[in-house]
């Protein structure tokens, strides 16, 4: 599993400028120059950000010598979503076990209710 890649992806997105660039690329491919436009930073600085995003597998650059537009790799985001969803699933299972324990605790403290619940459950 690409755990290292995922770590790099999460880390790359820790930077607000890079998150913003990713948001812009979600709307369509763009060149480094186009990406640099709205920011008060040099093309070189944007290139650095793009390199981090590229190394993380979040962005690719076509080999088209002239423009070299940046392209967002949507699959990596799907992978990130999936991992978080798996973690969430585990947490949900854990808390459903806690629900059951809490229900039992109430049963212990209120024998009459417990009896009724058992009756209703069977």
């Amino acid at each position, binding site marked *: 599993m690409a755990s290292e890649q995922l770590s790099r992806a999460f880390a790359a997105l820790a930077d607000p400028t890079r998150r913003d660039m990713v948001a812009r690329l979600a709307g369509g491919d763009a060149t480094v120059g186009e990406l640099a436009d709205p920011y008060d930073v040099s093309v070189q600085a944007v290139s650095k950000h793009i390199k981090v995003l590229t190394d993380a597998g979040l962005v690719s650059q076509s080999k088209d010598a002239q423009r070299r537009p940046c392209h967002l790799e949507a699959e990596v985001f799907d992978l990130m979503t999936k991992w978080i969803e798996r973690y969430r699933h585990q947490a949900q299972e854990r808390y459903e076990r806690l629900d059951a324990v809490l229900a039992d605790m*109430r049963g212990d403290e209120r024998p009459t209710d417990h009896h009724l619940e058992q009756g209703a459950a069977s």
Partner: protein
Amino acid sequence: MTTTSSRYQVSIEADPTVPIIRMTRDFDATPAELMRAHTDPELFARWVGPNGMETEILDWDATTGGRWRYVARRDGVEFGFHGCFHEVSDESIVQTFTFDGQRGDVALQTLRFEDLGDGRTRLHAQSLVDSFEGRDQWLASGMETGVDEGYAKLDALVAELR
């Protein structure tokens, strides 16, 4: 363990700016009951999980300055965890958490029990780890503990979300 209704879903958020995981979940219980389920070792061992693993509490002092240690076992494989209860109050627990397999890595966990009234409580659980790498490994820990059940279903679900 019996299946309970999934009336409440856990929500989870991985903060992009700090290595924190935040979770929120509602319960049909009072804050005191939820606190007891977190501090009574016998009750805690029954739900901390994961599914199919047996938890044995080895050390447990759920008071401010106390410590805890437990192992989760399945098929002869053991996973140990330990930490300290930094502060235990009526409505919150602040504790450290270390997986024995990664000694030196420590997470700071804050659990807050918000009274919603009518016998319901909202749990706010926050884990702060010391690096994004650590946080993301944690997020990925579902793979390591071998909790595969429902993954196929989950994949389908995620596919639907796209």
